[in-house]
């Protein structure tokens, strides 16, 4: 009876070990986890308060300029410098900005909010061991558990001592249970899950293309204001100084391009990476992928040990 229990326990541990080792392949972790690591690295420059604040300041500048652009149209038409039809024909880019600005502002604001509110979550995920190592956290303990369990089964078949091997199996089980706590996975993994959930609406090809269009709208409008509209306003007797926000936007625009351009690139280049990470099992479950197999292996080992007579001699005299 006790031998059957020990054999059952070792077989269970063997199955758990093989399952643990095979899990990364089943979940395509070897290909997906490094992509997640790339995404974490790429977003690092933007997941900082100073950077988000800088983007928000730029959005405020553009908001003020868009408001002035609306006023400028009204003024120029009222002054008779241009008819409404002429204005709209000549400065369609500015019209697009003033018409779309509320949408652009809300959408870009949403992106910045998502990045801002996830800074803590990002930091927690970034503090995890490197993503490319994730699969090996399953493979290595899985192989060790399977190997020790197999050796126990072999010993049972050969009738040789195996008590130490059962203790080793129990130790591996305890290590698996302890690993998530050691790596603070219980706190960090749910934060990763929150970040994934929060980023999901913004890390899509459609959303990235929206942002690209916003950039074109902004660039086109800024250029028309700077090159066409304000000079026309001055030619009609106006003073460009009446619209300081437009001038400020134009002065700042090259800097804005230099900051937004790489951020859009980061979003664009990481859509696929994000989707790979999103296809992994939920981050919140990751600690339990260690705890549960660990409990099974440890419990099976302890059960087998209870069915195994302790050594009769102090110097290693195991029973089978």
């Amino acid at each position, binding site marked *: 009876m006790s031998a059957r229990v020990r054999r059952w326990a070792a077989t269970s541990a063997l199955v758990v070990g093989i399952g643990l080792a095979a899990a990364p392949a089943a979940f395509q972790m070897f290909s997906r986890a490094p992509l997640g690591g790339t995404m974490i690295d790429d977003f690092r420059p933007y997941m900082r308060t100073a950077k988000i604040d800088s983007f928000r300041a730029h959005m405020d500048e553009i908001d003020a300029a868009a408001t002035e652009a609306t006023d400028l149209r009204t003024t120029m038409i009222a002054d008779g410098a241009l008819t409404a039809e002429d204005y709209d024909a000549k400065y369609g*880019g500015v019209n697009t900005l003033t018409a779309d600005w509320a949408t652009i502002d809300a959408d870009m604001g949403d992106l910045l909010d998502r990045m801002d509110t996830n800074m803590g979550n990002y930091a927690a995920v970034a503090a995890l061991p490197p993503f490319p190592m994730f699969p090996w956290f399953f493979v290595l303990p899985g192989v060790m558990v399977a190997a020790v369990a197999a050796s126990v089964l072999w010993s049972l078949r050969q009738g040789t001592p195996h008590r130490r091997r059962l203790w080793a199996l129990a130790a591996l089980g305890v290590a698996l249970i302890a690993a998530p706590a050691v790596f603070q996975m219980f706190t960090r993994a749910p934060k990763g899950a929150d970040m994934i959930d929060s980023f999901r609406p913004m890390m899509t090809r459609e959303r*990235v*293309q929206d942002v*690209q269009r916003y*950039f*074109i709208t902004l*660039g*086109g409008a*800024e*250029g*028309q204001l*700077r*090159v*066409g509209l304000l000079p026309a306003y001055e030619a009609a007797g106006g003073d460009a100084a009446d619209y300081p926000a437009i001038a400020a936007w*134009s002065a700042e*625009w*090259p*800097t804005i*391009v*230099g900051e*937004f*351009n*790489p951020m*859009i*690139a980061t979003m*664009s*280049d990481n859509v696929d990476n994000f989707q790979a990470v999103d296809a992994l099992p939920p981050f919140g479950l990751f600690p339990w992928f260690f705890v549960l197999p660990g409990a099974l292996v440890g419990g099976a080992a302890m059960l087998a040990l209870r069915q195994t007579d302790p050594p009769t001699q102090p110097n290693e005299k195991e029973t089978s």
Partner: protein
Amino acid sequence: MKASRPTTRLLVATVGALSLFGAACSDDDTTTTTAAPTTEAAGDPTTTVADVETTMAETTVPATDPMVMYEGDLVGLFSIDAGACADGAVTGSYFQMVMPGGTAEAGPFIGNADSACADTNYSLLAAGADGGLMTGAAQAAPDPAFDATGNGLADSIVAPVTFFAVAFAAATDPNEAMPMVSAADGVLTGDLSAFTAYYGTGIFNQGAPKPDGSGAAPTGTIDPETGVYTLEWTSLIVGGSFDGFTGVWHLEGTFAPNG
């Protein structure tokens, strides 16, 4: 009456002398005919002169067929004629940016308010410090490739062009295939996969074909005698902030071989 032996000898000598004189006059005529094409063919005396001599000998009129000078691999400088806009027409070299889903023929294009053209879909190009695009040699971007505000600094091929208030620049990436253009019967094609644009701290391959071999090769024409050419290509931007956009490049100028 029979001629005496000395008289016979004198007659034979006179006839022989006249024959030699006639032959000498005939040789002089031939030399005059071949001298002219030798001078006309001075541009390529090694191979073209023989052909012209043959033609002249057969037809005895000066050659009228164009002299094919620019054929095969063209290694040298494709000088760039500056783009210009006059009366609504765009001439010379220019760049256009096609929105995702658009085409080089129909757009939609991104209007560049900084363009010198009324039709802001065209951004005009002017020759850079090297005078144009070199084949058989890389024209790498400087390091750093950008100034503090993201303006591209490469200026060998074309002068940096302001686009949305920020200058984009072009270079050929020395890590990619060496730029090469070849001509066949006045039609150009080649490998410009190394062609790269620099804008707003972003680096965008604008090669044709792309470095992975996808996309079309550049196309164009060249006057085999003068080297006057047009060369154009489109290049899809893959990755980065302009992912999905397409650059359209149109170069005009004159090719000059190395040496």
